[in-house]
C-alpha cells in the first residue's frame, strides 16, 4: 500500500514536474518576449531621443535664422523711420537731433555719438550724444581729438570700423571701447559730398551682443542717409541764400525801375507840356498867317498876280495842314494827360460810319473805291464820345482811301460779348509785317514808296489809339504787304 502510494506520489510528482517544466518553458518564452519588447521600447526611446536631438539642433538653426531676420526687419524698420525723420529737416543742426535714444535701442545699441570735422581747424565737433554723462563726453572729445589722424584716415578711406573689424588696430579698438564705455561698437563715416565730414558711433554694453556684417551694413546705410541729409541741408542753405540774394537784387532793380519810370513819367509830362505850350504858341502866329493869306487872296488889298495867288493858296493850304497837325498834337497831349473829358453817350455806329462815308464820298469816287457797310440792324448802341469816335472813323477810313489805289473799303460792326467790334478793311497796298507793331507809335511812318507820295504827320493813328483806349477799348491791325489791311477796334456796348 505504501509502495502504491509512493508510486502514485512519484507519478504525481513527475506529472507536476512536467507541468512545471511546461509552465517554466511558457514563462521563459513570455519573459523572452517581454525582454524583446523592453529592448524594442528602449530602442524606440533611444531612437526618439536621437530624433529629439535632431529637433533641438534644427530648432537652434531656425531660431538663429529667425533672430537674424527679426534683427534685420527691426533694423530696416528703424532705419526707414530714422531716414524719414532726418530727411524731414533741412536744418543741419536738427538732423542729428532726430536720432533719438529709442531708435538707437531699436537698432540694438544703447549709446550713440556723432562728430563732424571742421575742414579748416581740423577739430572734431560733437553733433550727437546719447546716454553719456558730461564727464564721459569730455573724455570722448579729448580722445577723438587725440586720435584725429586715425579717424581722419577712416573718413578718407570711406570705410567704417567695428569692435570686430579685423583690419582695425587692436590697441585703438580697445581704447575706443574703454573711452566710449562699450563692449561692442560700430563706427561709420558720414560723407556728404561737400563741407564738413565726420562719423557716427553706436555702441552697446551688452556682453551678449554679437556685432556682425549686417550691423555694420545697417549703420553704414544710416551714416549715408545722414550724409545725404547734410548735403540736402547744405544745398538748401545755399539755394536759400541765393534766393535771398536774388530777391534782394530784384527788389533793388524794381526800386531802380520805379525811379526810372517816375523819371520817364516826369519827362513825358514835360514833353506833353512842352508840346502843348509850343502848339499853343504856334497856333497864334499860324492863325495870323492864315488870316493875312486869306485877306490877300480875297483881293481886298488889291489884285494880286497869278503867281502870287498860287503861292498864297499854298501858304493857306500848308497853314491848314499845320493847324491840323498842331491840333492833333494838342489833342494827343490832352488825352495823354487826362485833360480831355469824354462826353459818353449811346451812339449808333451805323449812323456815324455813314456820316463819315458821306464826307469822304468824293475822294472815294475819284479813286474808284467801292464802299460797303455791313452792320447788323440789331447791333446795340455803343457808349462813346460822338466827336472823338467820328474822328477815329474819319482817320481810319481816310487812311484806307489814301492807301487803296482802287478797290473796296468795307466797314463791319458786330457785337462781341459786352463790346462792339468795328473792322475797317481795305483792299489796298497793305503794310509790311515789320511795320505793323510800330504803326500806332507817334511820328512813325512806314518807309515805303507810297508814303513818299502820301502826306502824313505820323500822328493820326497814335491819336486814334489814344482815343480808343480812353474809351476803354482796344485797337489792332491785321495786314500784310499787297494784301490790304484791316483795322479793328472795340467800344463798350451802351447798357
Amino acid at each position, binding site marked *: 500500500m505504501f509502495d502504491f502510494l509512493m508510486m502514485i506520489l512519484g507519478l504525481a510528482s513527475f506529472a507536476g514536474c512536467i507541468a512545471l517544466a511546461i509552465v517554466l518553458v511558457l514563462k521563459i518564452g513570455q519573459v523572452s518576449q517581454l525582454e524583446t519588447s523592453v529592448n524594442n521600447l528602449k530602442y524606440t526611446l533611444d531612437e*526618439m531621443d536621437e530624433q*529629439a*536631438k535632431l*529637433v533641438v*539642433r534644427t530648432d*537652434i538653426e531656425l531660431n538663429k535664422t529667425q*533672430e537674424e531676420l*527679426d534683427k534685420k526687419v527691426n533694423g530696416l524698420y528703424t532705419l526707414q523711420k530714422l531716414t524719414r525723420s532726418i530727411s524731414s529737416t533741412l536744418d543741419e543742426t536738427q538732423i542729428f537731433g532726430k536720432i533719438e535714444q529709442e531708435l538707437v535701442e531699436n537698432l540694438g545699441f544703447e549709446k550713440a555719438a556723432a562728430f563732424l570735422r571742421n575742414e579748416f581747424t581740423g577739430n572734431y565737433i560733437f553733433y550727437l550724444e546719447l546716454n553719456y554723462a558730461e564727464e564721459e563726453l569730455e573724455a570722448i572729445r579729448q580722445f577723438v581729438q587725440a586720435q584725429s589722424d586715425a579717424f581722419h584716415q577712416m573718413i578718407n578711406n570711406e570705410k567704417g570700423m567695428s569692435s570686430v573689424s579685423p583690419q582695425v588696430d587692436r590697441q585703438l579698438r580697445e581704447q575706443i571701447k574703454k573711452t566710449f564705455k562699450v563692449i561692442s561698437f560700430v563706427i561709420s563715416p558720414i560723407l556728404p559730398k561737400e563741407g564738413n565730414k565726420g562719423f557716427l558711433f553706436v555702441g552697446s554694453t551688452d556682453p551678449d551682443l554679437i556685432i556682425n556684417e549686417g550691423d555694420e551694413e545697417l549703420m553704414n546705410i544710416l551714416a549715408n542717409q545722414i550724409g545725404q541729409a547734410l548735403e540736402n541741408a547744405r544745398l538748401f542753405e545755399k539755394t536759400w541764400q541765393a534766393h535771398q540774394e536774388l530777391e534782394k537784387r530784384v527788389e533793388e532793380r524794381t526800386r531802380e525801375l520805379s525811379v526810372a519810370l517816375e523819371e520817364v513819367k516826369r519827362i513825358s509830362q514835360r514833353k506833353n507840356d512842352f508840346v502843348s505850350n509850343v502848339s499853343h504858341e504856334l497856333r497864334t502866329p499860324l492863325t495870323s498867317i492864315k488870316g493875312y493869306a486869306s485877306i490877300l487872296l480875297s483881293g481886298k488889298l488889291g489884285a494880286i498876280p497869278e503867281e502870287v495867288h498860287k503861292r498864297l493858296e499854298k501858304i493857306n493850304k500848308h497853314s491848314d495842314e499845320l493847324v491840323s497837325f498842331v491840333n492833333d498834337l494838342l489833342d494827343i497831349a490832352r488825352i495823354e494827360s487826362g485833360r480831355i473829358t469824354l462826353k459818353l453817350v449811346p451812339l449808333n455806329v451805323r449812323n456815324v460810319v455813314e456820316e463819315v462815308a458821306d464826307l469822304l464820298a468824293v475822294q472815294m469816287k475819284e479813286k474808284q473805291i467801292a464802299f460797303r457797310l455791313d452792320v447788323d440792324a440789331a447791333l446795340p448802341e455803343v457808349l462813346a464820345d460822338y466827336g472823338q469816335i467820328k474822328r477815329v472813323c474819319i482817320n481810319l477810313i481816310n487812311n484806307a482811301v489814301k492807301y487803296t489805289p482802287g478797290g473796296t473799303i468795307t466797314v463791319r460792326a458786330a457785337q462781341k460779348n459786352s463790346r462792339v467790334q468795328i473792322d475797317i478793311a481795305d483792299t489796298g497796298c497793305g503794310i509790311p509785317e515789320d511795320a505793323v507793331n510800330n504803326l500806332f507809335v507817334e511820328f512813325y511812318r512806314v518807309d515805303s514808296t507810297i508814303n513818299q507820295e502820301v502826306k502824313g504827320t505820323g500822328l493820326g493813328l497814335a491819336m486814334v489809339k489814344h482815343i480808343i483806349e480812353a474809351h476803354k477799348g482796344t485797337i489792332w491791325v491785321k495786314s500784310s504787304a499787297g494784301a490790304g489791311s484791316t483795322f479793328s477796334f472795340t467800344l463798350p456796348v451802351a447798357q
Partner: protein
Amino acid sequence: MIDIGVGVSLEKNEIAASEEAVRQAKSRKASKEKIDLVLTFSTADFSSVALIKHLNTFLGDVPIFGSNSSALITEKGIFNHGLVVMLIGFPEGVYFNTAYTKTNEFATSTAAGEDLGEKLLYGFQNVSRTLSFLLFDRMEESGAQFMTGLQSKLGRSFPCIGASISNPALAGRDSLFFNTTILNNACIGILWGGKFNFGLGLKHGWKPLGKPHTITQAYDNIIVSIDDQPAIGIYEEYLNYDISRLKKEFKKLSILYPFGMRVPGQQEYLLRNVTSIGDDGSLVCRGNVQTGSSVRLMISTKETCLEATREALNEAKTHLASQSYRFHKNDSSKMAIIFNSFPRAVSLRREIKKELELIRETLDPETPIIGVYTHGELAPLLSTSYHGQAYFQNQTISILIIEA
C-alpha cells in the same frame, strides 16, 4: 467696488514721469482722495531714489509697493522705458498689510521668511487670510527655505504669488520700492484678506523633449550631475556644442531649452533656467533643484507660448469664478496683475505684442492691467488644485485677477 486708476508715463526724467503717471492715474479714479495702496513699476533706466522721492511728493502718505524691471506691461503696450502707477482704493471689508524683510540680514533664509511672515500678520489676528503677494530679489538659491519660513508663520491654506526682479543684465540697478524706501537683497510682501475674490493662472508653454534623465547629484540651485555624468553633458549631447561654445551662447540657449522637472502629483513641468556653467560641468539654475528628480530638456514655439498665455488666462478666470464671494456685476470691479518672465519675451520676440493683445481680449475690457517682466515667478503649479505648496518657477506667465 475697487476704485482703480492707472497712469503710464514715457517721460525721460523722474519728476516729469512721476507727475504725469500720477496725474493720469488720479484722473481715471472715481475718488482722487481715497488711495489705499499704490502699485508701481518702472524701468531700470530711471534713478529709483529720485523716482520714489517724486512719487511720494505727488501721492502723499500712502503705501507704495513695486519695483523696477526690464520692461513694463500696461494696457497701452509693452515699454522698455517708462513708469506705470496703479492707484487702488479698496472697498470696505478688504484688508491688507504690507511689510518687507532684508534677506541678507538673517542667518538663514528660513529666518528671513519667518520675519516677513510675522510682520505681514500684524493686524491680521481676527481676519481670514486669503492671498499673499511677494516681490523679491536675489533668492534663486534660497527661495525654498524662505518660503518654508514664511509659510510657517502665515500657514499653507492660501496661495502665495510673487516674482523675482533680479535681472543679471541690470548689474545691481534692480530695486524694490517700499513706501519711501529703495530696497535690495530684500523681499516685500502684501497679505490680503477679507471680502474679495481672486483668480490665479500660470503657464509656461514649454514641452518635454527626448527621454527623461535623473539628477544624480544636486544641492540648492546647482545640478552637479545628471545620469552620473557632469550635468553640462546633457546640453553637449543634445545641442552638439562643445563646452566653450556652450559657455558663450548659454544664456540664450538656456532660455530656449530649459530643464523641466517632473513634480509628483502635478501635470505641469517645473522649469529651470541655467544661469551659468561651473568649471566642473555643473549647472547653476535659477531656483532650487533636488537630487533624484526626473528632468527633461524642454522646447517651445511661439504658438505653444501664446497657447500657455491663453490657458493661464482661462485658469485665472476659472479660479476666480470658483471663489466664495458672489458680487453683483455692478457692485464689483476687477484688476489684473501680470508677472511675465523676461525669457518668454526673448522666446516670443515680436509676438509679445500679440500676447498683450490676447490678454486684453480675454480679460474684461474695463479691467485695468499692470505688470512687469520678471526673472522667476513664485506660484502654485495649478491654482485650481492648490495643495499648500508654492513653487519658484522660470519662464512662466502669472496672471492674478482681483475682484472686490
